[in-house]
């Protein structure tokens, strides 16, 4: 059973954002958590280059980058051949939270979308959620990313179960008490389209 405590020492985080002050703010918040190993990429291409060379335990990315969207970067991450990159927890920060934008980020395989300005408690809860909620990865023709099905009801009529079906314990996941309902509503139970 995970305790209330979190040990951020040695956690390697990649921040992807070209807004100097937003990065500074985020870096301060993460330092407050005890997460001191931070790398910063200002563009999507720079992030790709760092991800090719390094190993990151957490990626925090602004939704709009100068050269690409977070969704584009996410799709690249989720298709990567290196599993450390491919399965890395990604939290996307966005200031302008139009539904279509949040949906596109979710559908690109983000773990969480956090609305800016980022409150330390909200960020901490979302990191904790990404770290401590057991979520298998789903790969389909049109989606690669963390499983978004939090409530597993079992196969229809209890029959037809395959080895690849979700184990029942996936349904045990609990969400933190988050304050950004409008975004999280888009990340709550949703059937992944399976072709």
């Amino acid at each position: 059973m995970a305790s209330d405590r979190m040990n951020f020492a040695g956690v390697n985080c990649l921040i992807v954002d070209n807004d100097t002050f937003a990065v500074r703010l985020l870096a301060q918040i993460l330092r407050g958590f005890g997460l001191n190993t931070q790398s910063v990429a200002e563009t999507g291409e720079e992030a790709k280059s760092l991800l090719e060379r390094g190993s990151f335990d957490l990626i925090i990315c602004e939704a709009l980058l100068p050269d690409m969207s977070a969704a584009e970067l996410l799709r690249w991450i989720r298709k990567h051949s290196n599993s450390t990159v491919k399965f890395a927890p990604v939290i996307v920060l966005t200031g302008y939270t139009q539904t279509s934008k949040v949906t596109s980020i979710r559908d690109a395989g983000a773990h969480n979308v956090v609305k800016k300005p980022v409150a330390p408690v909200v960020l901490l809860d979302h990191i904790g959620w990404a770290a401590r909620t057991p979520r298998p990865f789903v790969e389909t023709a049109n989606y690669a990313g963390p499983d978004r099905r939090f409530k597993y009801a079992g196969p229809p009529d209890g029959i037809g179960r395959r080895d690849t079906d979700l184990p029942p314990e996936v349904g045990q996941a609990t969400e933190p008490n988050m304050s950004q309902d409008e975004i999280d509503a888009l990340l709550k139970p949703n059937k992944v389209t399976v072709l």
Partner: protein
Amino acid sequence: MTAKWKLVHVRNRLGDLLNREGGISREEAVTRAEAMVEDIRESSECELRNQIAGLEALLPRTTANVTEDLMAEVLRQADCILTLSGTFGFAALDIVTKSLCDLVEGMLRQGIFAADPIRVHLRAMRLFAPGAPSLSSEEAESVTSELGRILTHLGCRPAQPAEPGKAAAC
């Protein structure tokens, strides 16, 4: 029949790291992070003023019309302002900046390229910038409601959410 999807049970490295011995409690982490943010309040307030000046510089007084690219740049810079105004509790500046975002988004949607409505918003942002003389709540309310009338006049009010309380515009 072969399933056209794959389920991969991944070892959660981040979870393993966070669950190690030691570390800090949620309350401690949040308190420390808030203190770290407070440490940069002064420089952030200065940056807020610079960001507003940067927005003003985008729209010279003689400019009657704006381009789509310029409006995109206004949105980008407004986003930076929202980060700081929201973080450091400049509520009125936050409201006006969100109104600016709604306005520009609405203008882009409708193909309106007038500079004046944007300029009026920038003046209002100046009124609520850090270090500006404080306005009474009635005065502040009057400014924001006038901005609201501009949005209504131009048809730039953000679309109402499908479900109450389920959408945010900016």
